[in-house]
């Protein structure tokens, strides 16, 4: 089983809270053009710290 976070782009407000709590480097990138974050799922370990930190529930843990 590989666990990674899933981003709902509609809900993201670009506050970058997830970037500041993520213990993995380069997983969540901020796109200055769209003012939203992007997720690199291959680098994610699925700890869920960003899910707790997100104020808009835009991130969720995807177990598959």
């Amino acid at each position: 089983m590989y666990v990674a976070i899933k981003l709902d782009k509609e809900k993201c407000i670009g506050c970058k809270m997830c970037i500041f709590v993520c213990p993995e480097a380069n997983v969540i990138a901020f796109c200055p053009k769209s003012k939203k974050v992007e997720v690199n799922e291959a680098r994610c370990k699925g700890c869920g710290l960003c899910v707790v930190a997100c104020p808009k529930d835009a991130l969720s843990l995807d177990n598959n």
Partner: protein
Amino acid sequence: MTKNILKMSPAFADIIPAEYRELVDNGPYGRDVGVAELGTFKELLEEHPLCAGCGLALALRIFLASLPAPEDTIVVGSTGCSSLVFPQAAVQNIHSLFGNQNSVASGLKRALKLRFPDKDKDVIVVAGDGATADIGLDMVMHSWFRRENITTIMLDNEAYANTGGQESGMSQQGTVLYMAPKGKNFPKISMPELAREAGCVYVAVGTPAQPRKLEKMLKRAIILARHVGPTYVQIMTPCPTNYKFKNNETVNRLKGLEKDGVFKPREYITAEAQEALNRLEEVSK
């Protein structure tokens, strides 16, 4: 070191890993980027082997992002979870014997001063609580007594985490761990106060739950170590594996510990260091 050393030969460009190419094109070398810009540049760290939700990994990520000059920084590490990260980080690193980190750093700083008299080379010690407060305490204290110009950073996870969870001098009294079933008998060592008395010009206790504040502490410690004397930063980094809490509770646990008064962020600075800091901040404006 200049960025030219990192640049690859054009003939090999197609076989160089994508991560390395990204580091050369969009890395933090020679640019004024910090914690606030995280997510917009390629970080120095890459796929480390630490556990999911590790507080230490979060602290190291913030540490690597807040380095004032990553190309002129040498990190001296010691055995422990923190040493697992540096083979994956794009900074110069020396792995010393367990507990010897501050002695190695003292010699290195003196040699670099002779070799590059007109350049600031930051020598930073990054070690865990076992290497700093237990096994290497004499080397750490004596580097402070000698007033070596090095920054000592302790990543305090309150246990020997990668050998199965033994109690360390920094564990709280009564802590029960996998390899400490009876609970710890004596209280946590107050390292920041020891550092202040031993001659550190700047001492700070921070948490990765407040990344910008931690960045400010780390930057101050590194800059003051260049100009004034030894500095010490202690970062609280909870361990979900040995303290048996869920991976996603690391940051909330830090906030809870601070609320309960178990963990107190604090800063001590000498008058001489404060004066130097004011002068440096005025110049940078």
